[in-house]
């Protein structure tokens, strides 16, 4: 058993794919003479839904930007989506609208339309420039301009006619209201509950040579803004789409850079890590001897850290895995043994570089995976979330007896070499957890376990060969040096960015960008810019189903 990855003969794991579609299209041809393995190929179009639904967060951000709200609307009351086959909430092809959510949409659309017309300043913003005075002409103009923003494309004549007809009913539907405002209100309400708003529709403009769907420029603009902002395209992107510029990778890169400089990209980056690392779960943590607020503090720490590295420092995955600084409040400073004066606010602090190196050594990750099985819990998480190793479920239970004084000895006595747990545990799981034995159940550094010196040595079977290390710093370095970690991180970004599971056709792209991350240390932002320049960003294969 080997960790799964994009390199070698392999493809990125598709275990997360529900199997709903088969990629079509041809395999790639060598592109770069200096490349290795999968990176030499060219990606092929990947099948995905033509009607991916917006996630709740995307819906909220889109409404915010569409209606010029100061704050993102609270949609926590929206009916929860079931988990999908990816690690993220935005796997649109698997998100649906049942009666609960249909009603939530309806109620929210009514509220936002009503709030809008009650605010003259915002009404002015949604109105077309040089708004005509005549009510019917104004209606047509409003439907055209607002409709293009809401649907992220120009309306067809038939669509426009149907909304103009609704505009004309405004005064009847809102008795006593100003006719213009009534028109605005009913059209906005209707567009917010339209499938053209609720889904990122990708019907394309024709077929490419390999049979895949060639997306329209408007659909590409939409992909780009949801990839980097989780929100609707802005005016500049819609203008570029109208001008037909977005099939040009260079122009896409320019827009990507522009979008990445916006605060919405920071929100996206934080949310990516919040979901990937399951940070929200820290809120329920109660490590012994620490205040109840520590879980939330641990979440905040990691959120601030990833924001600083990626957004403020334009840093790379290497920094995420190796930085010896973090953000702490008073309670976390005590946990990390940082001296100085700290309060309830979070400030940047230099941690002991012999103890701490990036995400794998942060307190929340460690404290959330505590107890007698901590090496297993931590090891599984590193394998799955950082290395994209596929682990089969545990075998059927047979009660064994653990022996040994230290946690490592006890875990090893039943999962180490020569035991029935050797297959996965001794090979992949334990080696990813044992170097973190220097951390106790609350994530504090320790050198002794039950009166014995901690043993943090292990060997992990990376694709490039077995790698041995001692303790968390060397382990983080080994992860940083591996192709697997970079492929895994890119793979997750592709999943979250495009809102679909990755598939075989993505393998060359993942391998190429991962190589640039590992060997050239490109920043996470540059990683995203490379992803949007892929031909796969401008097309999708047809889902073939029996």
């Amino acid at each position: 058993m080997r960790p799964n990855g994009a390199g070698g003969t392999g493809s990125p794991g598709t275990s997360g794919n529900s199997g709903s579609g088969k990629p079509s299209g041809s395999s790639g041809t060598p592109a770069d003479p200096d490349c290795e393995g999968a990176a030499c190929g060219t990606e092929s179009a990947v099948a995905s839904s033509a009607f991916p639904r917006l996630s709740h967060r995307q819906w909220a951000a889109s409404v915010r930007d569409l209606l010029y709200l100061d704050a993102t609307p609270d949609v926590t009351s929206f009916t929860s989506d079931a988990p999908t086959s990816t690690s993220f909430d935005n796997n649109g092809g698997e998100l649906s609208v049942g009666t609960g959510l249909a009603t939530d949409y309806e109620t929210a659309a009514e509220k936002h339309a009503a709030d809008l017309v009650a605010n003259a300043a915002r009404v002015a913003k949604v109105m077309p420039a040089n708004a005509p005075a005549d009510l019917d002409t104004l209606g047509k103009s409003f439907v055209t301009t607002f409709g293009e923003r809401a649907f992220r494309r120009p309306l067809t004549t038939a669509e426009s006619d149907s909304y103009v007809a609704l505009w004309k009913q405004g005064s009847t539907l809102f008795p006593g209201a100003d006719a213009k405002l009534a028109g605005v209100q009913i059209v906005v309400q209707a567009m917010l509950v339209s499938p053209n708003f609720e889904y990122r529709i990708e019907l394309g403009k024709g077929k490419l040579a390999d049979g895949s769907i060639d997306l329209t420029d408007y659909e590409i603009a939409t992909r780009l803004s949801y990839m980097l902002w989780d929100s609707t395209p802005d005016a500049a992107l819609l203008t570029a789409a109208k001008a037909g510029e977005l099939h040009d990778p260079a122009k896409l890169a320019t827009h990507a850079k522009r979008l990445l400089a916006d605060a919405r990209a920071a929100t996206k980056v934080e949310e990516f890590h919040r979901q990937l690392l399951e940070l929200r779960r820290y809120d329920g943590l109660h490590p012994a001897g620490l205040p109840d607020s520590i879980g939330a503090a641990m979440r905040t720490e990691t959120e601030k850290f990833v924001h600083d590295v990626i957004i403020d420092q334009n840093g790379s995955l290497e920094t995420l895995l190796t930085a010896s600084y973090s953000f702490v409040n008073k309670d976390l400073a005590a946990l990390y043994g940082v001296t100085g004066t700290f309060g309830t606010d979070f400030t940047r602090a230099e941690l002991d570089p012999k103890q701490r190196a990036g995400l794998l050594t942060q307190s929340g990750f460690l404290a959330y995976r505590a107890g007698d099985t901590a090496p297993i819990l931590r090891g599984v998480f590193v394998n799955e979330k950082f290395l994209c190793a596929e682990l089969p479920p545990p075998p059927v239970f047979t009660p064994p007896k653990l022996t040994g004084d230290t946690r490592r000895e006890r875990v090893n006595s039943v999962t180490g070499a020569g035991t029935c747990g050797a297959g996965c545990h001794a090979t992949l799981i334990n080696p990813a957890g044992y170097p973190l034995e220097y951390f106790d159940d609350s994530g504090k550094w320790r050198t002794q376990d039950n009166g014995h010196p901690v043993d943090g040595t292990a060997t992990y079977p990376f694709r490039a060969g077995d790698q041995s290390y001692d303790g968390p710093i060397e382990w983080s370095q080994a992860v940083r040096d591996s192709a697997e970690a970079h492929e895994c991180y890119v793979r997750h970004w592709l999943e979250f960015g495009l809102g679909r599971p990755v598939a075989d056709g993505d393998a060359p792209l993942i391998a190429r960008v991962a190589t640039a991350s590992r060997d050239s240390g490109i920043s996470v932002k540059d990683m995203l810019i490379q992803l949007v320049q892929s031909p796969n960003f401008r097309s999708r294969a047809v889902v073939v189903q029996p």
Partner: protein
Amino acid sequence: MSGNDKNRDKGLSRRRFLRGAGTIAVGLPLLDIFDAPSRARAQDATARRFAVFVRQGNGCAQAGNGEPERFWPKALGALTTAQMQAETDRAFVDLASYASKLLLVKGTKFAFPGNGCGHSGGGNQVLTAQKVSTDPSGAKSLAMGESVDNRMATAINPAGREPLTLLTGATEGYLPVVLSYRGAKMLRGADNDPFVVYKRMTGLNGMDDATISQIATRRKSVNDLIRGQLQTFLGRSDLSGDDRKRLDLHFSSIRDTELKMGCMLPEMRQKEFDGVNPNDGKSYVAITQMHMDLVALSFACDYSRVATIQMGQGNDATQFAIPGFRNGETLPRFHQISHRIFSDGSEGDPIEGAQEMHHEIDKLHARLFKYLLDKLSEYTTPEGTLLDAGVAAWTNDLGHGVSHNYQNIPWVLAGSCGGFLKQGQYVDGGNVTHNKLFNTLLTAVGVKKADGSPVDDFGDPSLAKGLIDAMKA
């Protein structure tokens, strides 16, 4: 006069008031007053029936793997309060006061093997009686058909509303949501924040009827447009099967008259709802009880007549602290207790007294079930209390704790559905697949096949048909 007009004649102010125990007075909502006659349902003429399924994870502490029986009562037959109180080594001491309303059913099993993950396969089957998917497999496996709550809701819920789907536990992690399915591989999301659900249920509270009428008129205009757009998409020849299924669901989910519930919880209780953190395992009992309040309110106010409460994640790792047991100390993770070892895998140090802990956790869930029965008994309908008019079920997606098998699944039922189900009895289903239990419950709440005959074929088509006669009064 159409059915629609008939309803309208009864007037917008036709709100039935129910009196709950104590001071809770609730107004029944307007039922489908603007609804198209085509959506009228066969069950309208019959008494309102209710069903709630509460699911515990990790199996129960019943006999097996060399361990003695700590769950089921000692003898089949009549249940009495005195006898249940006397059986202190079994799970039902705290449910003894409901002896005359209980129906315990042993001898049912899941028909199909899991697919790499026992918990996932159990969660897939427990309310569906369907096969476990081969793709995806393992912890990602899904059920190959709808769940019983979905079937019931489709038939008996007002305006085709979806079943209330609640979860005690975090919505992220390993196997977070497992119970309710709209159809094959169509897992329904579950809500874990009772205050959020409450707010959603009571969204339009306080509006007068004229306002509500205007809202409904506007929705009709807007939704006619939306239906047309969805129909255009559904008419495309290049739609994938999955996209078609999802757009079909959307089309059939559009509501012109979803007017929310007209009743509320006492203000003090609302504040408690507002104060809990649904991701905090320490709030397990409090949140489960709030979910139970919501279920009773939902039934009383006709928001949804069908509900599920998934207590704990797929392999529930909650660390319980049970008052009166080991001085209320925090116990190891429940999943590890169920395996009797300090591990979520197959190997680990033994947990001393783990079966006793599991038994106490079963009893804790019995007390939670009693809380639900108390709530359902507080509201009276023309058909009796909610409990008498419906059925509440406490079950598990595994049979035995240690082996995590699919045999002898716990089914603790309460309420007779207006006299259809046997009461005060512990019966043996006869080692049958549990689709037959669902056939019995579907019939009890008034669901019928298209030809009007009782449902005898719920679940995978390969399963033996029929009801469990021992459950019928």
